[in-house]
């Protein structure tokens, strides 16, 4: 694991949001890297001071009584069935989900949508851009950025069948320096999309493929923290390339994708 990856994982690690495999890898790195170890210590110190008991304000008894009185008054008009016990936090530590799973799980969050119904979703486009970058970064942070590991397009394409509406066109560009590594599924907005993963030197390249025409997966070129989104046409589907390659490599790869048949 390199320092860039390790630094991105320090906080999820401290927040108990990493799965065991990632946590082990990070621990191994921190054991050998004084810079990352120091950064982890600083974060730990900050956590310590934020957990000071005086920072938590307990509800005053008057408020407790006020709510009780309001509830007693309201209950005269009838009751609805109680929800399942809300306490999900009693989960043992080992069930912690990897950040990636949590995202996949939550992207369709039905309840969240219901509460949101009153609020206008600020900007769908921004949201898609955010999701694409987030998905790419999380994949980089995970032990492996792919669900199906294969450089053989005849393995990758069928793997997507049944998982997304239309399996994407899969081509290996190893001869041109962009080797197919595999594929994975991810969520952008509430759509499940196929992601083709390529490698070019040290760079990991994600190609998000729109599951259908008129999909929300339509973005303009965008850049964030040295990573770039490049919209491109892949066969008859629209797609978006996400990577940290420089401009020249990016356009060379985009050209290959566009010309794939």
């Amino acid at each position: 694991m390199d320092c860039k990856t390790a630094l991105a994982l320090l906080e999820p690690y401290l927040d108990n949001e990493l799965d065991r495999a990632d946590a082990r890898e990070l621990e191994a790195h921190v054991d050998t890297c004084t810079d990352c170890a120091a950064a982890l210590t600083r974060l730990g110190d900050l956590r310590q001071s934020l957990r000071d008991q005086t920072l938590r304000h307990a509800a005053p008894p008057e408020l407790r009584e006020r709510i009780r009185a309001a509830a007693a008054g309201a209950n005269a008009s009838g009751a609805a069935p109680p929800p399942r016990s809300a306490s999900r936090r009693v989960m043992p530590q080992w069930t912690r989900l990897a950040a990636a799973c949590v995202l996949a799980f939550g992207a369709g969050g039905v309840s969240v949508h219901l509460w949101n119904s009153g609020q206008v979703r600020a900007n769908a486009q921004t949201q898609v851009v955010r999701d694409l970058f987030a998905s790419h970064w999380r994949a980089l942070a995970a032990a492996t950025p792919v669900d199906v590991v294969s450089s053989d397009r005849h393995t990758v394409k069928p793997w997507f069948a049944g998982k997304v509406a239309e399996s994407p066109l899969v081509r290996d560009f190893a001869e041109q320096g962009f080797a197919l590594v595999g594929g994975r599924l991810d969520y952008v907005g509430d759509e499940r999309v196929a992601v083709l993963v390529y490698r070019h030197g040290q760079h990991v390249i994600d190609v998000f493929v729109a599951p259908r025409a008129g999909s929300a997966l339509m973005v303009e070129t965008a850049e964030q923290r040295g990573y770039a989104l490049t919209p491109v046409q892949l066969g008859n589907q629209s797609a978006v390339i996400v990577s940290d390659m420089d401009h020249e490599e990016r356009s060379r790869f985009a050209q290959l994708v566009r010309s794939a048949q």
Partner: protein
Amino acid sequence: MASAWVGELAQRHLDAAYNLGRWLLGNEQDAADAVHDAYVRAARSAHTYAGGDARAWWLAIVRNCCLARLSSRRRDAQVQSIDAPGVAAALPRSADNEVEDRAAAAQSGARIAAHLRALPVEFRETLVLREIEDLSYREIADVLQVPIGTVMSRLARGRALLQHALAAADTQEASHGL
């Protein structure tokens, strides 16, 4: 219309609700009123609860009530700005709170509390939910109604800002000591 389970839910997570209110609104009275508003709203919209994390559902309502109060306070502050300019108008504080603050200043948490209070609201609320209420990323995302990636970036930014502020304060204290 109202449901007994909402009352129970509110009681069970009353400290969490009130604490969030205190950090968003700054004083006891406003925080208590916002939590009361939230209870009334939650009881009325109990039928919209669609399963999932009930605590996050409740805290999301509390937060919305707090934000509503914040924005109306800002409007009031603008109206009064001719005769009462400045930050004081936006942050009304009761005498009780000042006494409490002074007492707290003697304690170890006071320094970090001051810096946390000074953070922009989006970083402050995210840190409060994570560090003080111990919510998971998923739960925070549900309360704030933003993607998990946003929760992660706000935590990172908030922590960096706090570390920076604390370090700057240390340097200042050291130079005054000379």
